């Protein structure tokens, strides 16, 4: 026993099986991809004539010339089966660092296109995936905890609604409402009408009412307070033209930081754990104290790397603060501190972006209409890091929402179902009966176990999104993997279609494998070797 066990509790023997498992899966995956590409290649080769356009040139000399050059570069004079192996040889080059995905019918290099488009695709879907996971899980778990409440029904209604809406339609509507109408609203002075203030207040009031599980009168009081606060806030936002030149300021940041500290502590340790609470609060205090120095630091010469470095420093500070408070569970304090630091960093970052908003939206290239409907960036925009970041964000906003809405719908349903199942298990009852706090039961016993099945779903979703953003890309004028595929199909252009197919096949196989491995790692009942 001694020495044969690693600290994580997985025996070296199991490590061995995991390795064998991975190798076996990789080999199997390789042949799956090989077979799939062969079938796809033959299908694509028979799907249409890449020379269709060339054949329709009315000028005979040009027509012949174009047919000739396309036939040569796409090997159209070779039998499709043999052509597949020609193609495969180009792909095989990837193993020696010389990929060749062939040429498209414009004689362009598919390999370089593929590189760029994969980058753009990642940029497009990264935040959508991250947000979908966070929001989906949160919503799913809250609805599970508040099963059959008004909130649960409302969310269920909305998730089914989003799930069944076609992406292209969501895109067009979002562009109209969130971009065009909102820009009009901004240009008209960003003033809410009374009706709007009432609607907003009622909405949030209702929301607050439905999430609670308390006696009627108490629910009503809280809902009324929320509605009043929202009404006041929106009146303030409207009358000061805050949306035209937004900023948070140190007071709001201090309030929000305290709220984040309390919230994080509630989730990780419970407010009763004073050491953890103090760790979070002192981290928050450090963040607020650094607000003005940071603003001057942000002023010039910012770039993404410096920003990421700052984030790392912030988290390290959070961890350090947690350790310094000491106590029984230093690691818990450190985690609390780190999460608080992350939250506060994000708020300060958002505040700084807000401070660039006015300059950004009044840039002549933007012309007071900051939210864009299409493309990944504004042409000819000159500006510092903050202006460029805002530009990226205003262009990412709509596609991210579009992609997210549908994923969130799925994730939240799975999270809800999984959480409900776990909550009905015997060990949860045991945990409750032995007197653990509700927080401990949910966060430590239920939540972690509920995550297991969701991991699989998320892994699939990532591969699905990478390949499946075709419609979203199209609607928002982003040129990425989906466009590569769609244009390839439209022009009966085999090589781009195959490049898309290959990348997706590999992703599907990889994500499948990762899902299985993570499943096994999360759930000790599952053995990868068997």
């Amino acid at each position: 026993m001694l020495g044969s066990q690693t600290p994580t509790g997985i025996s070296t023997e199991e490590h061995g099986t995991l390795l064998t498992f991975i190798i076996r899966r990789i080999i199997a995956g390789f042949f799956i991809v090989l077979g799939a590409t062969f079938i796809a290649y033959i299908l694509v080769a028979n799907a249409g004539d890449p020379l269709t356009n060339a054949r329709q040139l009315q000028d005979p000399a040009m027509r012949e010339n174009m047919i000739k050059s396309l036939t040569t570069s796409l090997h159209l004079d070779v039998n499709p089966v043999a052509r597949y192996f020609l193609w495969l040889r180009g792909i095989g080059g990837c193993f020696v660092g010389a990929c060749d995905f062939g040429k498209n019918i414009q004689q362009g290099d598919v390999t370089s296109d593929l590189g760029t488009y994969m980058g753009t695709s990642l940029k497009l879907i990264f935040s959508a995936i991250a947000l979908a996971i966070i929001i989906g899980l949160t919503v799913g778990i809250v609805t599970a905890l508040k099963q059959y409440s008004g909130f649960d029904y409302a969310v269920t209604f909305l998730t089914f609604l989003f799930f069944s809406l076609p992406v292209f339609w969501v895109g067009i509507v979002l562009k109209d409402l969130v971009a065009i109408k909102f820009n009009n609203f901004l240009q008209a002075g960003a003033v809410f009408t009374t009706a709007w203030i009432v609607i907003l207040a009622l909405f949030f009031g209702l929301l607050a009412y439905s999430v609670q599980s308390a006696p009627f009168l108490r629910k009503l009081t809280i809902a009324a307070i929320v509605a009043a606060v929202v009404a006041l806030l929106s009146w303030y936002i409207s009358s000061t033209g805050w949306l035209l030149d937004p900023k948070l300021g140190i007071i709001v940041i201090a309030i929000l930081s305290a709220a984040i500290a309390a919230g994080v502590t509630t989730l990780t340790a419970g407010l009763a754990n004073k050491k953890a609470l103090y760790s979070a609060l002192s981290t928050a205090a450090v963040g607020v104290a650094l607000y003005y120095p940071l603003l001057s630091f942000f002023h010039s010469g910012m770039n993404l790397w410096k920003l990421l470095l700052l984030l790392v420093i912030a988290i390290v500070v959070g961890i350090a603060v947690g350790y310094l408070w000491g106590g029984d569970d230093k690691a818990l304090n450190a985690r609390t501190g780190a999460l608080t630091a992350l939250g506060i960093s994000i708020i300060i970052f958002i505040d700084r972006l807000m401070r660039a908003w006015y300059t950004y939206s009044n840039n002549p290239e933007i012309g007071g209409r900051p939210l864009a409907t299409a493309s990944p960036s504004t042409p000819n925009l000159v500006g510092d890091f903050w202006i460029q970041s805002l530009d990226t964000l205003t262009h990412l906003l709509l596609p991210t929402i579009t992609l997210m809405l549908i994923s969130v719908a799925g994730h939240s349903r799975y999270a809800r179902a999984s959480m409900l199942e776990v909550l009905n298990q015997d060990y949860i009852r045991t945990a409750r009966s032995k007197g653990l706090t509700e927080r401990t039961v949910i966060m430590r016993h239920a939540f972690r176990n509920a995550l297991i099945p969701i991991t699989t779903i998320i892994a699939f979703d990532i591969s699905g999104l990478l390949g499946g953003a075709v419609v979203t890309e199209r609607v928002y004028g982003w040129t990425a993997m989906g466009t590569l595929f769609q244009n390839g199909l439209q022009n009966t252009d085999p090589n781009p279609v195959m490049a898309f197919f290959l990348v997706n096949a590999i992703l599907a196989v990889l994500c499948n494998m990762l899902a299985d491995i993570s499943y096994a790692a999360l759930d000790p009942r599952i053995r990868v070797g068997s």
Partner: protein
Amino acid sequence: MRRTRAVAFTALVAATALVVAACGNTDQAGDTNTSAPAATSSGAAAPSDTGSASASETAASGSETAGSATATETGTAAPAGAVCGTPHGPYDKPAKTGGSVKISWNQPLYSFNALTGHGNAVANADPLYLMNQGGFFYYNDKLELVNNDQFGTCAKVSDDPLTIKYTINKDVKWSDGVPVTAADLLLQWAAPSGQFNTEELKTDENGNPVKQAGVSFDAASEAMKLVTEFPEISDDNQSLTIKYSEFFVDYPFQLNVGVPAHVVAEKALGETDPTKATADMVAALKTFHEGVKETKDKDGNTVNDASAVDKTVVANVKKIADFYNTGFDATELPSDPSIYVSNGAYVLKDYKKDQYMTFTKNPDYTWGPIPSVDTITLRFYPEAMANMQALQNGEVDVANPQATSDVLNAAKALEGQGVKVLTGDGATYEHVDLAQNNGGPFDPKAYGGDAQKALDVRLAFLKTIPRQDIVDRLIKPLNPNAALRDSFNVVPGSPAYDATVAANGSKDWQKVDIAGAKALLAKAGVTSPKVRLMYAQGNVRRANEFKLIQESAQQAGFQVIDGANKDWGSLLSNTKVYDAALFGWQSSAVGVSQIPPNFITGGQNNFYGYSNKEVDGWLKQMNAEPDVDKQNELNTKVETQLYKDGFGVPIFQFPEIISFNSKKIQNVKGLTLVPGYMWNYWEWTAGA
């Protein structure tokens, strides 16, 4: 749980309601939208298939080949000797200058050389037009060829042999400071002339392109093939004289400046001095051309044999060809600025892959129309509705996506915010052709060689085609002014159109004539002939046209069989699979010389076995006729006979919708040829 299900159900109903509500608006468009890609692939040519407005989706061309037969009319009106359009004279300075505009197109540029086989697309020709305008000539909105004599002039030196002298003005230079010279023109002759191609592009047994010693320019031009003598360059390097070995009717718009010769020479020959590199290139081409001989290969094909030419010269010419073919291909701003030097009003400042190109005024430019706008940004929107929403949101000022009723409705809805909508004709025209060589209902063979019977059946079928109905139902919603196209070869709106239409017998074909068709069928003694009508599968507009034709023809007794086929393009030459074909030609982009292949016996575009001695004679005459009025006379004769012979019928011109924000940009006008609405960019003004 029941409540959950009820909620889910309500959600589903709500979603459906939303979608249905949304589709209510766009009902018609649903059709036309789907037809978008197909309409394009059917539109005769353009390799830019990503959507593309039909209008400028012209088959061909850099500016050279774009042009209608009739547009050459100005040739005769022009002063003696001036042959590439009417000389314009000096251009006025714009009243106001400055500002910026944002225009849009559906596909990004992929090559700065629009004259190669693969680079020949509107997506390339349009941005290049901003950079190089037309060089010697361009078309105005009356489809007249205009000679920019501030750039250079063209003179006819002799009629027999046809000899044209092109002279570039002294101060004209590329944006890197190198003068534009005769060498630039020489390259545009050499590349498509075919006289430097010693080998066809070859592949090994695996199909890989073989590295070959031979030269192969990826370009072709019927006209330049006829210039077999090495053109003469004047001593001052400003003039080039080309001599045609036989008359070529469309000579006015065959040669123009394209890619910068000095860049090709520097890159290909590895030199740095532009003057020396260019001179070396000209010398290499000349030596090569002198030494090369035409021989027959073992298959009997004519090939060029360069074995007598010095090996280093051959190697150099090969390098020139290779660079010419692919050196200008780029999908973002090339790291080497020489790839995108310009000789026109604007220079390229930025090109972000798949997003936009930015053009700023060329500070040295004086030789041509002087633009008013300082900066032009060309943004790319592959999706038509995305383009319209971008217009609504002020992200672009001009939108010209593929015409659908969605697009038109969207544009009309924006009129309140200052958007103006131009609807008009595009460059492609729809028509039906009948196969006469497949043993089918239109082939005399089916009636034991009785040509009269076959003719009667053809005419009967054509009489049933509901042309006006098709225009009213499918085209008018997009272009309220849409009319029938009543000429096979002349573009509506061009100077000769009205006269041609009045005389070509098309007035007998205005209305559906079921009774007449029945009578003809009865006369021929044919009952319920089966007609396989082939058209592009997936093209909703064509599917609708098919239904209209089918219904109408049925009344006269024809059984029209749905021949939708995704490979219709390549099957056109195989009449075994169809009896009638419904598709589009972009004839507007070609001149008189492009007419004969459609109708002459054995012509390359005459897939149908049509043969008429008289028509052959007229077409040959037309090809040798320099006088435009006489060309038109001959063409009218040809068209009259085509109608009589039941060759087919033209139906309509593809519609085009241009919408622009008049608060941001003024003076936008359409043009049925490449470069579409960009043709008069110098008249645009920015701002209110």
